[in-house]
């Protein structure tokens, strides 16, 4: 495709600033700030209910009806998407920024041939003729690894496997060469050998097109495989962020540390008792005051009743929201 490698640096393509999302008056996303650098992959990791998917959906204002953006800014190359009109947003979706979801089969139109679904964005945003759009769509389908694209393009989603459908979704999302791709658990519904193909494909397209990617996942393996930068969410807040190597090698937040320690590893000691995180993820109406992890945190003290800010740990972008960063070795 391209001969030159597109740039990868800290120029923010997307900058989310102090985002708040409310459902029924509750702050389900509470002051989240994230930055996706040019050509970089940011992984947002956390468990169900941590607000990662709502954050992802809010970027292109695709939140469910019950949820609303209650504050903050969502800047795509300086333009605030949080306050854009619906009409202006339509120019951006699928054009400058795209999103792919966990269930490809549910995200594709079942009554539309897959080729036409890939062409749609081109015709909408670029005003290409049918023949031109078709040519580009076929090339895109080939480049995401769909064998025999001419024939596949004429098929309907039900005729394709889950992995194939996810490739079609990615082709449709990337056809206009967006600056930003949001991938919400893109491989959770897929088998591992197919997951490996899709993750590989996303990285290759990032390298060729230079798209910044935000990947939402609960899988620390996927984070390690994909991310340049990581944001760990708990209770609707970012509790830790930093470069991927730092987050895995030297986590500063007890939640991140424990999340990494609970997962059985291919190189761990078999049959050993696994580390656990006590308790359960509390419901949105049951989050404690102050640090929201404190009801499960082995290091919690009285000071945790006050909300810790996301303070820098070092000078290269590692930050954690914890009063007891210096005591982490006690739980190691």
């Amino acid at each position: 495709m391209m001969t030159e490698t597109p740039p990868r640096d800290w120029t923010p393509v997307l900058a989310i600033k102090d985002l708040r999302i409310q459902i029924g008056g509750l702050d389900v996303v509470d002051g989240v700030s994230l930055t996706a650098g040019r050509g970089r992959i940011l992984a947002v990791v956390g468990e169900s209910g941590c607000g990662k998917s709502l954050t992802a959906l809010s970027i292109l204002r695709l939140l469910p009806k019950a949820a609303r953006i209650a504050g903050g800014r969502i800047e795509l190359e300086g333009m605030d998407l949080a306050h854009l009109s619906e009409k202006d947003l339509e120019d951006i979706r699928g054009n400058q920024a795209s999103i792919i979801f966990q269930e490809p089969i549910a995200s594709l139109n079942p009554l539309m041939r897959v080729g036409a679904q890939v062409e749609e964005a081109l015709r909408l945003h670029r005003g290409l003729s049918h023949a031109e759009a078709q040519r580009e769509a076929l090339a895109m389908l080939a480049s995401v690894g769909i064998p025999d694209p001419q024939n596949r393009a004429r098929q309907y989603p039900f005729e394709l496997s889950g992995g194939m459908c996810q490739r079609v979704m990615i082709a449709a999302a990337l056809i206009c060469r967006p600056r930003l791709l949001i991938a919400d658990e893109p491989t959770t519904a897929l088998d591992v050998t197919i997951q490996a193909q899709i993750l590989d494909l996303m990285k290759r397209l990032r390298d060729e097109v230079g798209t910044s990617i935000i990947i939402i996942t609960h899988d620390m393996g996927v984070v390690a495989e994909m991310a340049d930068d990581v944001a760990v969410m708990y209770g609707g807040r970012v509790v830790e962020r930093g470069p991927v190597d730092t987050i895995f090698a030297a986590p500063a937040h007890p939640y991140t540390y424990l999340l990494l320690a609970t997962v059985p590893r291919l190189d761990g000691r078999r049959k050993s008792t696994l580390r656990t995180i006590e308790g359960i993820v509390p419901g949105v109406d049951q989050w404690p005051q102050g640090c929201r992890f404190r009801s499960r945190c082995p290091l919690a003290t009285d000071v945790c009743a006050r909300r810790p800010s996301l303070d820098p740990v070092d000078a290269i972008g590692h930050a954690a929201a914890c009063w007891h960063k210096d005591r982490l070795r006690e739980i190691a």
Partner: protein
Amino acid sequence: MTNPGSPLLSVRDLKIHFPIRGSQGGVVKAVDGISFDIPSGRTVALVGESGCGKSTTAYGIIGLEPVTSGSIQFEGREIAHLDKQSRRALATDIQIVFQDPSAALNPKMAIGDSIGEPLVIQGWRRDKRKQRVRELLDLVGLPEAYAERTPNALSGGQRQRVVIARALALSPKLLVLDEPVSALDVSIRSQILNLLMQLQKELGLSYLFISHDLSVVRHLADDVIVMYLGTVVEEGGAEALFEAPQHPYTQALISAIPLPDPKAQRSRERIILKGDLPSPLNPPTGCPFVGRCPIRIEPCGNIRPSLQPVASGTRAACLVRAPVPLAA
């Protein structure tokens, strides 16, 4: 009743085929001639991707899918084709835990009643039932007071504990665990895995563990059976199979799991398979893996390989890695 040393469960040449209705006809060979043993007190894992037949195998064993042919012996007794009454009696020995605890519990029934239901079916008296339910709640680490609650008052992990308690109500010898932690949050999974390991130790249970998550399988299983398109492509002790997998599919499967360690992950050599699983309606004639195999040779398209021992200590069905020894 078992002879010492003989397996608790023994599956031989099991086939579960589903006829396709309609003019096209045909048959889906969901499970196509697999054999394995579950020794007493051990954990045997069935692994593979969707459509490989691992869950169908489990359902065949507990009688939820009709067995087409082959033998399933429990403590030496044939159970592949039981009538309703004998199947019900067997429920005291074999129980299953499903993936989604929310779907496995009646939302309107109190937890204690759910756990006690198998006891009702087996004709236990009320006071004995209550006593047993208390024991079971304690066994799975839930407070006694939970007996009065309904499932919606519990978290996913707590519900799975309830399902496990119910499965243990009749003191079975074999527990079939069908993706028991896949629907749970990451921070909850290790609690349930620890519980399963602890229960096995305390009660001497045997597990048939179905999972697509190989990291979990490596942690829990003694023996591992890798399935692809209804057949076994490799089997062996967990240690050997993960240390030195021989079948190219096993190798690809293990290498496809991203390690939660970015540095190690970057330096790792990975095998990325081309293509999808073939349709089970129209499987390849030779080796089932031939269409995606990076090391296939000419005969693989025609000859179906059988499981042969390999030097690493596993048994693999692969003409290249585990050739059939020439007859003397």
